[in-house]
């Protein structure tokens, strides 16, 4: 039997960067194949080549034994390939059901569409109300819809580009269970992921890319997460991320003080922030643990000065810096250069501002310095922000945020979509900021990462903030996060 998907000798350059260098990749019928690699290793590009979205410089693509014209985005779809992208691709003004019907090309009455989407949602465990407007969905629900859309078009080959990176642990588990059920029905799946545990748990085979080359491919049953990490990095990795030792009570000055704070909900879903009391001192990192939609966005954005409290008291030292979750829509303007993005983020207090004037030369020199000191991989300060990989974009965002010399730094899931090396670097930057006396408030959807970076953790469940003793166990925190969402 021919393989479900076969890529031969795929090469692709983007300007100076060699994204893929002669990559071979084979997805057998009915298997789950994990595709691992650091940010910028070429995973997404390889799958976009397979799906016809990126025209490779060399190489061939065959689906189920049929060679397709490379760079034709309809050919793969016709042969039953579905893809879930890292970025959302739904139409905000349409309902869930309408988006699914559009992707799948159904010609049905609205009532039939609703019924079919409902059945599909139940059959896959991706529970979602088909009548909701996409604009009103949280990030987690939007991602759920993306997977649903890929499944709806009767796909025989599924390409999932980090499908769990924005999902809460129970949602992620439900999704992966769904993928396993599809294997039972003969669907072959490529799972791009950063989470080694996921790969080891559900994949049959694994391929590891490093800097555009295949460095390992083989069955998963012989592998451990540590060995896979070694392939990815080209060096052995030491075990699980450590839990940060509970620090003594911080003695810095109070920079954030909230009492009985309530904030109206953002967007159409979630609970909003109903009640939060906390204080954050200079030099400490406070982690906010919460499942998607439990008020953490509202809390963080209120502290960052972007949302007005509905009731309660909130005092925050200025200036504050904010790292928004969605890099491509909020943190950066993709078509603007790095220099322009830096100038935007610094406003009128920057040294290159004289009255109403911008000294672009000076701003560009500073951008160049930041590119160097934050090790951003880019062609230069004149490169559009969209041309950078996710990890390099985040380096630039953090550089810009710290450039404001903030008293308070608020970070909203800043490791989203980053591999563990890039994520670790982000966490190191947050720790370093705290060491410099900044009061840091951070939410991370990954609890292990949160425990590794935070001095203490508070839990938001159902919009209510619960302070925890510094020695609270991981299980206790997880229970509190989930317990309240069940109620």
């Amino acid at each position, binding site marked *: 039997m021919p393989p479900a998907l076969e890529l031969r000798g795929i090469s692709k350059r983007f300007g100076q960067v060699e994204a893929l260098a002669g990559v071979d990749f084979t997805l057998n019928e009915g298997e789950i194949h994990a595709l691992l690699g650091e940010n910028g290793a070429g995973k997404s590009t390889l799958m*976009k080549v397979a799906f016809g*979205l990126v025209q490779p410089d060399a190489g061939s693509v065959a689906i189920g034994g049929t060679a397709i014209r490379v760079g034709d985005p309809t050919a793969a779809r016709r042969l039953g390939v579905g893809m879930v992208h890292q970025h959302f691709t739904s139409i905000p003004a349409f309902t869930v059901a309408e988006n699914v019907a559009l992707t799948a090309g159904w010609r049905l009455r609205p009532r039939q569409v609703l019924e079919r989407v409902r059945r599909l949602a139940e059959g896959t465990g991706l529970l979602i109300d088909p009548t909701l407007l996409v604009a009103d969905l949280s990030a987690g629900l939007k991602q759920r819809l993306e997977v649903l859309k890929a499944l709806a078009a009767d796909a025989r080959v599924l390409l999932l580009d980090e499908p769990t990176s924005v999902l809460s642990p129970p949602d992620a588990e439900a999704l992966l269970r769904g993928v396993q059920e599809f294997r039972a029905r003969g669907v072959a799946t490529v799972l791009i992921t950063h989470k080694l545990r996921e790969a080891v748990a559900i994949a049959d085979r694994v391929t590891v890319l490093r800097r555009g080359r295949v460095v390992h491919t083989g069955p998963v049953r012989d592998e451990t997460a540590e060995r896979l990490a070694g392939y990815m990095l080209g060096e052995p990795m030491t075990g699980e991320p450590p839990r940060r030792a509970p620090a003594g009570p911080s003695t810095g000055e109070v920079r954030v003080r909230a009492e009985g704070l309530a904030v109206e909900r953002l967007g159409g879903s979630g609970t909003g922030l109903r009640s939060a009391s906390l204080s954050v001192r200079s030099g400490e990192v406070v982690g906010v643990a919460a499942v998607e939609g439990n008020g953490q966005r509202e809390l963080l954005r209120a502290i960052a000065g972007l949302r007005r409290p509905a009731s309660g008291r909130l005092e925050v030292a200025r200036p504050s810096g904010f790292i928004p979750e969605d890099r491509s829509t909020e943190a950066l303007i993709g078509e*603007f250069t790095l220099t*322009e993005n830096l*100038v*935007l*983020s610094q*406003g009128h207090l920057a040294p290159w501002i004289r009255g109403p004037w*911008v000294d672009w030369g000076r701003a560009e020199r500073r951008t160049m310095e930041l590119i160097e000191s934050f090790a951003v991989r880019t062609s230069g300060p004149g490169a*559009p922000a969209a041309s950078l990989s996710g990890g390099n974009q985040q380096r630039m965002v953090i550089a810009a945020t710290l450039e404001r010399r903030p008293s308070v730094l608020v970070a909203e899931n800043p490791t989203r979509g980053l591999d563990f090396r890039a994520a670790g670097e982000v966490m190191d930057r947050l720790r370093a900021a705290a060491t410099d006396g900044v009061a840091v408030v951070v939410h991370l959807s990954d609890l292990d990462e949160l425990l590794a970076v935070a001095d203490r953790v508070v839990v938001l469940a159902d919009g209510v903030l619960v302070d925890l003793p510094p020695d609270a166990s991981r299980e206790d925190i997880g229970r509190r996060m989930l317990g309240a969402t069940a109620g």
Partner: protein
Amino acid sequence: MSRAGISRLWLPVLAVGAGLLTLMLGLAAGGYDPLLALAALWRGALGSPDAILSALLPRAIPLIIIGLGIGLAFRAGALNIGAEGQFYAGAIAATWIGLSLSAWPRPLAVPVVLAVALAAGLLWASVPVFLRLRFGVLEVISTLLLNFVAEALVSWMVQGPLQESKHIYPQSDPLPLAARLPQLPGTRLHLGLVVALGLAGLLWVFGTRTLLGFQLRATGANPLAAQVMGGVNTRRVFGLALAVSGALAGLAGGCEVSGTSFALFQSLSPGYGFTAIAVALLARLNPLATIGTGLLFAALEAGSSAMQREAQVPAVVVSVVEAVIIVAVLLADSAQRRRLLAEAGA
């Protein structure tokens, strides 16, 4: 980089070529002599110093000034398609104030006339600004509809409060000399050209060298990022850009009354407010390029009347050329955007 630079330079030329070619084919198919028509078009626009100074440049002045304002608004994401109405608001106000300034010294009266026209355009555009910011009414709709209101207002004015003292024709009395922009002797070219060129330079500096100009561009490119990362009050920037674009259209109306027509009447504008949208788009919203595209469209308009006179070709066919140019530019834009998207999909 260099490839993109070349295509950006050649694109307008190719677009104009495509437009003229379409016109020739259409004329030939319709039984006209295309070469004769083209020669007349050329003579009317550029064939003599008089054509340039009295036909081309006076028409370019309103197109450039309005096009600059539209470019500013579009850059901020405000789709102002009500420049025609804002132009008339400025023209009405300029006529009204100009008629009462006959005793003033000219160096004082003319600036007052232009300032009042500017304010009237600003006021006219602040209605859509208010509707958008307060009630979320899309400015595309409100600015468009206010065009009809402005045209009706002119019609009433020239048959009512501003009608000439003899009450025969639907037009105003001629403006006193004190309220008229100085003209180059022996031509119809007036000082408004200097205003237009000065504004283009000013807006270019504003867009490329000032923080506010940059924030305006960011607001149009991604209002969410401008707000979250830049702390930009995007509502205010949006409203400001739309109001200023109205002010410039009003100023153009003032210049037209004070420099060219010296009176208010219906159809004072041959659709300047709409043609200027094409002027701004063809210039890619760049203020300096707006001078060039304004001249180009003025040449087409000026040449079209000569074409009608000499080759009996209806002047409206020139709008075919304009339409083809716009479509060609939009096509090239979307092709370029697709290519950029494909390349950014790394």
